[in-house]
């Protein structure tokens, strides 16, 4: 973060952002030698860490789905070790959840 960059009170705290940066770079390095399907858990774990950081900064205060996403990732990320179909089902459902939350309702739709 550059010194002149404005602080965004609703954004990710610098500590959490740098920690996530370290995690992502390390996860990329591990992809050079680990089973390829581990990349799935690294990415979703990173998403969980991002969600946790947003919660800590207060940026998720009016976005309860962020907490919902975080809780589910923490609860189910280990499924990859012993129930891959369930793990992949979680990924599909979380992708749908995020898409639902970030997609504005169609124009003219009822509130």
């Amino acid at each position, binding site marked *: 973060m550059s010194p002149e960059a404005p602080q965004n009170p609703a954004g990710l705290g610098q500590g959490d952002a740098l920690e996530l940066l370290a995690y992502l770079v390390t996860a990329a390095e591990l992809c050079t030698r680990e089973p390829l399907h*581990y990349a799935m858990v690294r990415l979703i774990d990173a998403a969980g860490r991002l969600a946790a950081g947003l919660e800590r900064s207060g940026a998720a205060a009016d976005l309860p789905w962020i907490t919902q996403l975080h809780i589910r990732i923490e609860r189910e990320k280990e499924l990859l070790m012993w129930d891959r179909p369930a793990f992949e089902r979680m990924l599909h459902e979380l992708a749908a959840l995020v898409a639902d939350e970030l997609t504005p309702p169609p124009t003219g739709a009822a509130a």
Partner: protein
Amino acid sequence: MSDVTATTSAEGRAALALMRRRRVRRQFLDEPVSVDAIRQVLQAARWASSAGNRRIHRFLVVRDPVTIARVKPFAPGILASPPALVILSTDLELAAAANVQVERDMNSWIDVGTALMSMMLAAEAIGLGSCPATSFSRGAVARVLDFPPTLVPELLLQLGHPVAKPPTPRRTEARRVTGPTIAALTDWERLGQLEPAEDASSESTGAQPNPSTIQPTR
């Protein structure tokens, strides 16, 4: 198939039961692990077999939460927050003194494995949970822990009081969870042959073909 025979001693049965019930534990209570407990786990590593009794590995115990928090971003294999870490490392100076060619000699990694297994069993025996992690950046962790270039971190062992025992898989899920049986992974006397029915040679008992095996080349 029973894991124990009628002649297995009580001590032997206890050891086998310990091996059977041990599970990787990734979630820990927010409670410190005592020095005594860690010492017992480390002692088990000292008892583990070591190729040629070379002992080229060192152990760094970390209980400081700040240090663990600094390691964690560079160790994606740590999924939660362990109260203690033991970093198993290869000491290249010890290896050189023992004439070990670390990059070519897989015994140095096997020795990490034997130490690890003994440590995890010892942890289980004293009520601790454990989880090994090799998913970490060796270079980054070495820097965070201020290692000299002659000390190479090989494995992180997470230790702590476990949150709860993982649910026992239902029988219908057991195959998927636990993988193939040892019988399916093992051949007797030669490739392609199952274990004999009795404690006798395969020739005398007419051992059956093993359908799961790798077939012999000729």
